[in-house]
């Protein structure tokens, strides 16, 4: 996945707002990339550009060698929003089947895939329930199952856990990492939580305030698989500090192993 020289401008004349300026971003296959920045920095806009929900003013976006538009028509994307966006009139299972209904898949195949995806997010047994009978965290897991259901090459997540309490969020972070490992998909994840970005990602793209630019892409080479112990790792805190300083506009040297060993 690559974004090259992308600008995004909304409106014209006095209404003109420059949302994104000269965005370049390379995302390798199977990566977990977080976009982080102050609110209004255009991180959601960048996600929507990648997903072809809106078009860049200048520049190109390629996904697996295709244009973003082609990739959307080929159903290469799975979207997860901050709100689960489940349909009240569909059971959990039928919500997960929704994207599959756009494909040529038959009824039994759809049901089988939905069951597999629900098992993956540990919601087996809830197929017949309605979304409004589930808790917020469970609803968001259904949304993730739905995004995974047609095995998209790229999952785009826009603050998916932003509305959840801290404990649910931490549990879902672990689940998401497990699913990411199991499916080998590429994930682009928008968040405004620094610890969340560091914990989840292989790369954190730190963005500036409007007009949004990518200040730095920090590679988070914490060991995989990550788990509860990661959150106690001194290097984890080192990366959090580094992202925070970068957001503030300071340039700091990356933490060296020796320093970490000395302090930890």
């Amino acid at each position, binding site marked *: 996945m690559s974004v090259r020289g992308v600008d995004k401008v909304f409106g014209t004349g006095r209404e003109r707002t420059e949302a994104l300026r000269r965005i370049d971003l390379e995302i390798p296959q199977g990566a977990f990339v977080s976009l982080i920045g102050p609110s209004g920095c255009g991180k959601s806009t960048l996600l929507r550009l990648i*997903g072809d*929900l809106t078009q860049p003013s200048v520049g190109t976006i390629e996904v697996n060698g295709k244009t973003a538009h082609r990739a959307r028509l080929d159903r290469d994307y*799975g979207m997860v*929003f901050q709100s689960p*966006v489940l349909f009240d009139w569909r059971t959990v299972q039928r919500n997960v089947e929704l994207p599959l*209904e756009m494909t040529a898949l038959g009824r039994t195949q759809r049901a089988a895939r939905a069951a597999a995806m629900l098992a993956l997010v540990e919601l087996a047994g809830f197929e017949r329930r309605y979304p409004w009978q589930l808790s917020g965290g469970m609803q968001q897991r259904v949304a993730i199952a739905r995004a995974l259901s047609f095995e998209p090459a790229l999952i785009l997540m826009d603050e998916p856990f932003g509305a959840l309490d801290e404990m649910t969020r931490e549990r879902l972070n672990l689940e998401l990492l497990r699913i990411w490992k199991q499916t080998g998909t590429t994930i682009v994840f928008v968040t405004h939580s620094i610890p969340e970005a560091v914990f989840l990602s292989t790369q954190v793209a730190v963005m500036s305030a409007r007009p949004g630019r990518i200040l730095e892409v920090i590679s988070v080479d914490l060991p995989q698989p990550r788990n509860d112990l990661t959150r106690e790792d001194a290097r984890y805190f080192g990366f959090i500090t580094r992202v925070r300083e970068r957001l503030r506009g300071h340039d700091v040297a990356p933490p060296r192993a020796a320093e970490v060993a000395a302090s930890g």
Partner: protein
Amino acid sequence: MRRLRYYGPAVAIFVGVLAVWEIAVRAFGIQQFLLPRPSAIAAAFTEHFDELVTVGGNTLVEAVGGLLIGGVAALAVALATARWTAASRALLPFAIAANSVPIIAFAPIMNNWFGVLNPLSKMMVVAVLVFFPIMINTLRGLTLVDRSSLELMRSYAATELAVFTKVRIPNALPYVFTALKVSATLSLIGAIVAEYFGGARSVLGQFIITEAAFFRFANAWAAIVVASAVSIAFFLIIVAIERVAIPWHASSRSAESS
């Protein structure tokens, strides 16, 4: 037991009002043609039961027929206006203008067009009457869709048809039923008022006019009771259909599952 506690107060008030009415009419010697006693209305009701059932049934047929004609037209226009902005620009002003016309004034014209004795003339008055509330509510339901829902469908490269059948139409159903519930009572009022402008003898409007003309006010009152009962029944039938059609909607959810 729980049912009794739930409906008890309403039943008590109903019985109480009837008792006060009965006693007041007797105590103050109120003339029958001003206000008949409830017992007299009940007697008229039993005496003319068969006729009232026929008369009420005929009016109900007009109301239901009119609601079907008006409803189908309203749904079609709402779907067209939701799908094509051009259609919305072309049709909406007329729909709003039509709504501002006193529909009942059309009744003599409808009689002229479709024939005084033809139930279709009453159905058309009802159809015009219910068209606007159903159309405007349906249109609201079709267009008031969460932006994320539409983006989700867009990310699936869903066709316009899929967006309608899988998102917009299910989203509109609760609005449609709200409009239908309002229209159920409205359609009966429309049918009866249209009947005042002439029609077959065996309909509620004409029955009330004739009985009142002959000072048989107890009979007229009995017909009014029938009209209310039919109206309530029509409303409840639509509520029942709603529960079956959209069990997922908040209005139908049972209390224990939250």
